[in-house]
């Protein structure tokens, strides 16, 4: 694969952190696939924006708290992290409420980036 163009893979996170396993297993997939030197990006849309909410406390849910793990994405050179502005606003959130720095974008801009991907992985 040395000379081949890198495959552009976007993870599309649409579900809240808890209530289903999609966000958590999505994160596991990001971390593994981030180690393979392809071009990985992540978009948080709809309830997916809750995944990055600061100060999550899952004690009373009895499930693992994994939001802090998103801070390690930087170590994998995954810096293209997009958040849909409207999804944030509809849920009373802003970029300041999120645990990592992100690029807040309009849906149309994210759609354009999606068009440029080879693969979209929904979680």
């Amino acid at each position, binding site marked *: 694969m040395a000379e081949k163009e890198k495959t552009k893979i976007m993870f599309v996170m649409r579900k809240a952190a808890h209530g289903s396993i*999609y966000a958590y*297993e999505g994160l596991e997939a990001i971390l593994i696939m981030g180690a393979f030197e392809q071009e990985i990006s992540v978009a948080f849309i709809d309830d997916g924006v809750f995944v990055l909410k600061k100060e999550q406390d899952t004690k009373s849910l009895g499930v693992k708290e994994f939001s802090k793990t998103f801070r390690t994405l930087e170590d994998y050179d995954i810096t293209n992290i997009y958040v849909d502005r409207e999804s944030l606003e509809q849920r009373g959130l802003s970029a300041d409420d999120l645990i990592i720095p992100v690029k807040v974008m309009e849906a149309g801009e994210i759609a354009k980036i999606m068009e440029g991907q080879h693969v979209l992985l929904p979680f």
Partner: protein
Amino acid sequence: MKFGILIQDGPYNHEASDSAYNFITAALERGHTIQGVFFYNDGVYNVNKLMDPPQDDRNISKRWSELGAKGIDIVVCIAAAKRRGINNDVIVPNVRISGLGQLLELAVESDRLITFGTG
């Protein structure tokens, strides 16, 4: 065209596994290639050999095993499988358990990766 298939939902409860199977059958009939199938999330339950549905219903794990016997590479994610009690003792023949690196490989090598069943 070379298709990669990702299945994220379990058998019977929703249609994802059936839709994926029907898509693959139709694609093969039209001369396309199936580069591989990857099971993630609850999708790993699709290859449990212990499933024993009523005789007038389809046996989903048997169908995947039959596709595997035709030479299609069918891979179950080890991390998702371990969490759900799926191991080599309970999977049907002609499928294998491996890591998420295989999904990446599938994504890289296929012309299109088609996903079925994100809730």
